[in-house]
């Protein structure tokens, strides 16, 4: 089941003392609407003295991205609890949609740090500039006192080169369908395909 992006709007229930309570809006990456509202209350509880039984959900929408056939650079800032402490992290990914980048982040955190969904908080998830601005060097005269947002990680920068080219040095020919898979081969497979 893929991740989706939801926008949840909620507030504390109006009371006589507070007839117009503050309204909050939150962007959440979850797999369902139910999970999104649940997550909304989880975070709201940390921010303000609010809980589900004394609150209202005013709206839940899925945020969809319009165009999914261009590759973009994404940056995700997270906070996660490991077995020994809390860590902040900044990660960059390339994908066609923000939810894809979030999916990659959860997979990486699970693989590298054994961190699950429940122990990860996404602090920020945004699109980075692409093209020439993605790796533009900071120039005070041109850019002003604040450095522009750019791709930071070297594993990302290497993919941004305009004339990117790399070989596939070792390949195993895959059967064209799962039905043709075999455990044993009659002959040693070729792995070099230039």
């Amino acid at each position, binding site marked *: 089941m893929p991740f989706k992006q939801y926008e949840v709007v909620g507030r504390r229930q109006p009371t006589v003392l507070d007839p117009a309570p503050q309204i909050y809006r939150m962007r959440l990456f979850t797999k369902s609407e139910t999970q999104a509202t649940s997550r909304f209350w989880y975070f709201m509880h940390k921010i303000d003295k609010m809980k589900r039984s004394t609150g209202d959900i005013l709206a839940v929408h899925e945020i969809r991205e319009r165009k999914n*056939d*261009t*590759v973009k650079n994404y940056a995700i800032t997270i906070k996660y609890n490991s077995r020994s402490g809390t860590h902040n992290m900044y990660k960059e*990914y*390339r*994908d*066609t949609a923000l939810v894809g980048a979030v999916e990659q982040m959860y997979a990486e955190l699970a693989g590298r740090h054994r961190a699950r969904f429940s122990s990860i908080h996404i602090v920020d998830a945004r699109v980075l500039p692409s093209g020439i601005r993605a790796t533009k060097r900071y120039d005070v005269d041109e850019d002003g006192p604040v450095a522009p947002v750019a791709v930071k990680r070297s594993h990302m920068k290497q*993919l941004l080169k*305009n*004339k*990117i*080219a*790399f*070989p*596939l*040095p070792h390949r195993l*020919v*895959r059967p*064209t*369908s799962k039905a043709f898979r075999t455990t044993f081969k009659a002959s040693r497979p070729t792995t070099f*395909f*230039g």
Partner: protein
Amino acid sequence: MGPAPARNASTSASRALHNASKLTASPVPSAKMTAFRRFVQVGRVVLVNYGPDEGKLAVIVDVVDQSRVMIDGPSDDASAAVRRQVINLRRVSLTDFALKLARGARAKTVKAAWAKEDVSAKWAASSWGQKLAAQAAKRAMSDKDRFVAMLARKAAAKKVRAALGK
């Protein structure tokens, strides 16, 4: 099936030489990489070898990361067209052909470059393309086709025997 030099080539060096003459626009990025002729690069024509588009040709229009690329396979024939999509490199094979494309080229540009280089015809003429076409033709044969082929084979064998005086 394939051109004679390819069949007779016993060393990889002679095979590389033969294929090098067929390259359309395949720049070699650096001297270090001369052992390789096919690169994951924008414009590289690939053959999809797994999944719903198996057996179709497409071209790399963008590199997502080290294992995934975005491909697009323009064709007037809907059954040969490949929708623009991100695909894992494990699901494609790199071919000798490369088009001149800018990163993230639009469908229209890709189609024009494809037509200009005449990729479909070049592929059909290549030994790889011919091999796949022959396999497909054989798979499509009916019982009668196989019977006719058998008769033709017998007739040919008879002539060979007669010519050899046996």
